[in-house]
């Protein structure tokens, strides 16, 4: 963990250091009927991701002749937030589904499965801050669990600013109270940022600081993802770059 980024030593709301991730647990192969799956607990987020495919795309006319289509769906259980939410997808859900797809696509060798579709379904059972980053972490593991060849794992977390301090991996409370939140996804091997969003107000310097801090966080998450895949990931090493 890179300590140099933390400017102060003030304790955070939940007692973490500024550049400390929330407790993280990833398990792969948790769903009996999916081709690949993963369960993640990242802070209080509890998320199941199932991957189906590559399989035939319906309707066929939407399939691509030279590559597979990656479809992502970010979906919150009605009881995942307080107060309860309606099961119908919101504009926010649709936007997150889209950015999840863009975060994962650069990692997948879609060219190997022309005309087919790979479905990535993320079910948010309980939501803390940073659901989209947690979904990407689990989805990347689930894709490998499904045997789909990838360039690298995609690791994701956010950095932000709260009470004048840059902090890593914001929880729900920090997310709402903070000045800004910068979720990011990163492929360590190719050093590519595949998700980047931000809401809030940050100086350009602080923004750059957030990116650096989030990339460091991603590198730690990457190790947890690899661990979760154990032997399966070993098989995949040869694919990278």
């Amino acid at each position: 963990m890179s300590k140099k980024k933390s400017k102060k030593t003030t304790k955070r709301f939940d007692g973490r250091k500024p550049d400390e991730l929330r407790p993280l647990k990833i398990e792969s192969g948790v769903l009996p009927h999916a081709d690949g799956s993963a369960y993640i607990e990242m802070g209080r987020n509890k998320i199941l991701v199932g991957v189906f495919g590559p399989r035939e795309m319906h309707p066929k006319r939407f399939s691509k002749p030279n590559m597979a289509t990656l479809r992502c769906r970010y979906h919150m259980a009605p009881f995942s937030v307080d107060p309860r939410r309606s099961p119908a997808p919101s504009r926010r859900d649709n936007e997150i589904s889209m950015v999840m797809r863009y975060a994962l696509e650069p990692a997948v060798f879609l060219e190997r499965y022309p005309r087919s579709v790979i479905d990535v379904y993320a079910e948010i059972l309980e939501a803390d801050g940073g659901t989209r980053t947690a979904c990407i972490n689990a989805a990347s593991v689930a894709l490998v669990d499904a045997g789909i060849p990838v360039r690298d794992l995609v690791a994701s977390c956010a950095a932000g600013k709260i009470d004048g301090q840059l902090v890593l991996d914001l929880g729900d409370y920090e997310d709402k109270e903070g000045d800004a939140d910068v979720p990011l996804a990163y492929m360590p091997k190719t050093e590519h940022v595949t998700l980047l969003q931000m809401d809030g107000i940050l100086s350009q310097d602080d923004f750059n600081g957030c990116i650096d801090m989030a990339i460091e966080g991603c590198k730690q998450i990457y190790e947890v993802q690899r661990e979760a895949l154990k032997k399966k990931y070993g098989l995949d090493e040869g694919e990278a770059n």
Partner: protein
Amino acid sequence: MSRNVGIASRLKRNKITEVVASGKRMDGRDLLDYREIQIKTGVLEKVEGSAEAYLGKTRVLVGVKFGKGYPFDDTPDKGVLMTNAEFTPIAHPTFEPGPPDERSIELARVVDRGLRSAEILDMKKLCLVPGKSVYMVHVDIYVLSYDGNLIDCSALAAIAALKTAKMPVYTVKDENVKLTKKTKAVKILREPLAVSIVKIGDSLLVDPSADEEEVMDARITITLDEKGNVCTIQKVGSVGFTRDELKTAVQIAAEKVEELRKNV
């Protein structure tokens, strides 16, 4: 008589029917055996009650939320209980994301009718200000893995979640309703559990797997409370039951429900 289409499906049906006719099942169970049952409660932190139930590879998560809302016009002095069911696409390759289909509507309806007709909650005690403010109780069924028999599994999870739920306490003063930080246990008046029995050929069997549901002729679900009273019945499938089969089904259900009851 089988009404399933496709050659693969007919072969599967023939195979299953043959095995079932000999009093056995594809997975080695006896006709009246349930698969392994597992129930975990308190699995979620943001809800007032939660439980996860497993029946073999079938897995259902239920969240119970208490809130405040308006009563229905025709029951101004009663709280509102709402049951919803969602089939997530991660539960089975054939499930698609989107609005609820016939199956998830049936699941929600049967569980809802089970909770409602057994009057498991004293809805009058869930009224805060008559005509203006009542407790809203949302029971959300979330299907995480499908290998048959969702109704029995969901009823188990729903009762387990309600039994362990802590509801928020409101104070009422001059029609002003205020949330306090206190919570209290939910009082459950009855504990209806469901037993689903399917008919394949001339045999009746319990706790059907996904394959058995695919080839079954008909299904009858019987919900019984802890005193052995019948609370809800639902028959589906394109074959009928004789009077004798119905009597047998009720006897089987009365027996098996005791076994289920040990888990909640």
